[in-house]
């Protein structure tokens, strides 16, 4: 079993199997990032596929010195989603639900948004501090390292995969109150 860095190195060397393994592992996160931007699920899957193809093309052209996944794929997919939205606007087409389409941010957040985000993050940290050490450990393992699978997080924390997923759902339900205000905006 190859490690994540080994798989990335093989992919950078042009190994097709390594690319397939990385896509299988990270594609869902790319799709979820597009859903969060308000892209419909069908279009999100298409854009994610297109983003992977572009990355492979860049690698073949020798323009991809590093491969930090899933970040680079999410960024690539984000650009494609923006292009998609702009071309839909230019053609006076509404891709799907208006409110969701407007959720795609076109630029950097303004000062007020940054302040709100900072406050939310602080509140979330305060809520996390009140949780048990094992819960905080699982949260950090899962969300600080996007490369880590639930199974690997379970192995490192000495818990079952089922328990790890249960903890993730518990954390989400507790932080939902803090984080959903931003999500509603």
């Amino acid at each position, binding site marked *: 079993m190859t490690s994540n860095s080994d798989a990335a190195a093989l992919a950078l060397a042009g190994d097709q199997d390594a690319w397939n393994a990385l896509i299988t592992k990270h594609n869902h996160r790319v799709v*979820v990032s597009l859903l969060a931007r308000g892209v419909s*699920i069908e279009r999100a899957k298409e854009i994610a596929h297109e983003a992977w193809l572009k990355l492979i093309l860049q690698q073949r052209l020798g323009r991809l010195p590093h491969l930090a996944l899933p970040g680079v794929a999410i960024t690539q997919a984000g650009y494609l989603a923006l292009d998609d939205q702009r071309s839909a606007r230019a053609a006076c087409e509404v891709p799907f639900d208006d*409110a969701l389409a407007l959720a795609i941010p076109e630029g950097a957040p303004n000062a007020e948004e940054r302040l709100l985000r900072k406050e939310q993050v602080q509140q*979330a*940290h305060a809520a*996390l501090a009140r949780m048990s050490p094992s819960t905080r450990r699982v949260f950090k393992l899962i969300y600080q390292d996007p490369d880590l699978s639930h199974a690997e997080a379970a192995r490192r924390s000495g818990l079952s995969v089922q328990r790890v997923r249960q903890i993730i759902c518990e954390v989400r339900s507790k932080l939902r109150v803090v984080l959903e205000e931003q999500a509603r905006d």
Partner: protein
Amino acid sequence: MTDEHPTASELERYVIGAHESADALRLETHVARCATCATALAREARIELKLQEVARVPALPIEDPRRGRRVAVLGGIAVLACSAALVLFGSWRAAPQEQPDEARPFIATHSPHRNVEDARTEPEPERAPRSPSGIACIEPAYVKQCMRDAHRRGLAVIEPTIQVPRYEYAAADQLN
């Protein structure tokens, strides 16, 4: 089966990647045709991204709302202590200067330094009649406390001669 709305738990499991392939396909097929579920799924996805952001940012110190009150109380105590120390110091300074009680100098009197030559050549300027020992309570917030202390120690309370400009006065003048 695809016409049934997925539960919130199913949407959550999909977003965190804890779904089975068959369940995922069923959910995606439904969400593609259901705007309500698409909105709910997008909300779950946004929460997921926010959680990643929370994990990326190092924990910041959380401000304790009680800390502000504690600082205010401690500050008040410190000001009171300083006021009391000033009163005590003033009375200590005033006590050994003159023997008779009625001749004790006023602690807040202005006494510019003059050299010896000046003292010899210049006539002695007229001096204001000496006040009995006293203290000037000039801090508005602690006038009552200061007066109580002064009376308890047998000190006269002197009206302050320096007019301290205050914002309220200036604001009132502007209004008039």
